[in-house]
């Protein structure tokens, strides 16, 4: 099980390096999604399956979708179709696809081996008991933080008539 950890770590570092050196934001986002998926696999090998699931759902799912929405909103216009065709050439998506395929092979190997990674697996039940026991105040504070984020994003995202006076 050690080898899966090392392979996932190397993929995480390579894809992060590619993500911060791309010129185009969409290409960088493709590599960033692969990086987050490989970190999720690292969590799985470290014996934290609940954190791995949250990483895939929230980071690679919600946050990356938010980024892609904003990137797409920023270049609306006539040339969007042409840019779309130009961005999705084979040379662009073959890199993230190869890295993601290696991660998939690794995941299938781990599922086939029937192991959950390390010997010390901390499952969701232990996390939940601790989360709503001693850490209850932290959960309340996190909910207040999310509420503040919601209100702030609503206020900032509202387009008023005079943009200059904003």
């Amino acid at each position, binding site marked *: 099980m050690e080898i899966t*950890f*090392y392979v996932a*770590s190397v993929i*995480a*570092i390579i894809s*992060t*390096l590619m*993500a*911060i050196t791309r010129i185009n*934001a969409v290409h*960088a*986002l493709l590599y*960033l999604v692969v*990086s*987050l998926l490989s*970190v999720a696999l*690292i*969590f799985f090998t*470290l*014996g*934290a399956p*609940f*954190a791995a699931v*949250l*990483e895939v759902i*929230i*980071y690679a799912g*919600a*946050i990356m979708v*938010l*980024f892609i929405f*904003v*990137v797409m*909103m*920023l270049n609306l216009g006539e040339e969007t179709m042409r840019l779309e065709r130009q961005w999705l050439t084979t040379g662009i998506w073959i890199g993230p696809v190869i890295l993601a395929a290696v991660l998939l092979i690794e995941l299938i190997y781990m599922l086939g081996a029937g192991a959950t990674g*390390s010997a*010390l697996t*901390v499952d969701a039940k*232990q*996390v939940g*008991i*601790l*989360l709503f026991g001693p*850490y209850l105040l*932290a959960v309340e504070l*996190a909910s207040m*933080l*999310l509420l*503040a*984020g*919601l209100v*702030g*994003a609503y206020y*900032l*995202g509202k*387009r008023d008539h005079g*943009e*200059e006076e*904003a």
Partner: protein
Amino acid sequence: MDYGLLVAAILFVLGLVGVLVRRNLIFVLMSIEIMLNAVGLAFVAAGSRFGEADGQIMFILVLTLAAAEVSIGLALILRIFYSFKTLDADTLSRMRG
């Protein structure tokens, strides 16, 4: 698994380099996400070293922080783009109130 902390440190440094080098605001925000993700990886690695669930709790809190931060940051980026028609941080530093 001390190598988990090593990977977290490398990812954090990569995110820091991204923040310092890139001048596009979207890339700066993406690099901040990379750094927060590396911090979460460090927490989970430390928690799994001792077999405790506290590391994952801290990861969930970091995740909450990242979600709130990215929503506010992207709303600000949209606002800046509509007002100034650019996302270059050097151009925006000449902004006058």
